[in-house]
């Protein structure tokens, strides 16, 4: 499924999801969405809409309809696998407590 809000071809301009990198060294983070006729205009609109106060040094736009999301109804089953696998976390290992640099 695409991202929520995508209206297919119902609207005059498609919906885009906007991701903003707030500064060098950080990831692009989802900021919101907007409407634009094409990718060039989407990037410009994203600059005007989401970076009016130096919020970003880079923006990505993705057509909402191009996003593939996990099935919201399969939540439990889909994300179940880490359950009961505490050994994936460092705190599972207690014997090394007190040992320096470990």
């Amino acid at each position, binding site marked *: 499924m695409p991202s929520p*809000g995508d209206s297919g071809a119902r609207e005059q301009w498609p919906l885009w999801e906007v991701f903003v990198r707030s500064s060098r060294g950080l990831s692009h983070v989802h900021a*919101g969405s907007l409407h634009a*006729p094409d990718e060039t205009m989407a990037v410009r609109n994203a600059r005007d809409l989401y970076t009016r106060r130096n919020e970003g040094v880079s923006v990505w736009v993705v057509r909402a309809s191009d996003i593939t999301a996990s099935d919201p109804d399969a939540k439990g089953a889909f994300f179940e696998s880490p359950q009961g696998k505490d050994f994936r976390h460092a705190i599972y290992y207690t014997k090394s407590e007190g040992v320096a640099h470990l």
Partner: protein
Amino acid sequence: MVTTTHATATATATAPAAAATMADGDLSEDDRVGLARFLELIESDSRVEPTDWMPAAYRKTLVRQISQHGHSEIIGMQPEGNWITRAPSLKRKAILMAKVQDEAGHGLYLYSAAQTLGTDRDTMFEQLITGAAKYSSIFNYLTPTWADMGSIGWLVDGAAICNQVPLCRASYGPYARAMVRICKEESFHQRQGFEILLSLMNGTDAQAKMAQESVNRWYAPALMMFGPPDDESPNSKQSMEWNIKRFSNDELRQRFVDMLVPQAEILGITLPDPDLSFDEETGHWRFGELDWSEFYDVLKGNGQANSVRVAKRRAAHENGAWVREAARAYADKQAAAAATAAEAATLAQNEMVAA
């Protein structure tokens, strides 16, 4: 910039929680599971996200509130846009333009949030210009003097902030996130308004008089932005149970008045309410009765500018139609050209491979 839930204004929202309206037998197994999960999220003060199951009435309440809020931001550009060309200095003009641009942005954030609930922006635009949708009544007042730019910033944006800060914790994720962004931007709006009034109060007698008269006009309407008194706001209770609204209309109004009084003192402005007095016992400022007949009258469409505001919005929308069409046509043409070029490149490559 603004939001009130205008609970009594829209008769559609009388529906209580879906759970109560649906006999248990009407619920499918999926709905039963979804509802249980929804109630759990609300109970634990967590957030509901777009793909979660939610009661139809919750969705409807949100779409109505968020779109009404978005429309208020969009219409709210007009009373101030009215002064951009006549701002008294280049600096004030730049500030006012930045503020009005922010309000456009707020409208777009909110339309996006509402769109995640299944009502697209084109539909909301349509509802606004046909008069099917409401926006905050405050924007149906005219702005005859420059001092009104001060009053709007100080009082109207001030009331909006008071209303919106708790909405940053609204249970619907996209709405709450939009509010966080909006609240960050609003603080400059209120301060610049305050400074406009302060400059006027420190100016000539005529300027001070202009500021006082403007505040006289905006004070009561700003207080009414929080919506009708609690006992006349039947839907507030449901909104509070759903963690959309965190404080009642009257609580927020009181909070606002308590903030205004000391600020007015600094400005040297008199708040136009002879009944304003400090209540030692409660630590709050008591204020006089508001004229709710005026509020309902403006809501009904009899404000100073109801028809002007919608007509102007409609004209802007219709005059922009060719731009939207042209941009769409250009995008389609570019995409077609890119597709043809890609096809040609593939063909050429295949031929080379074959040769």
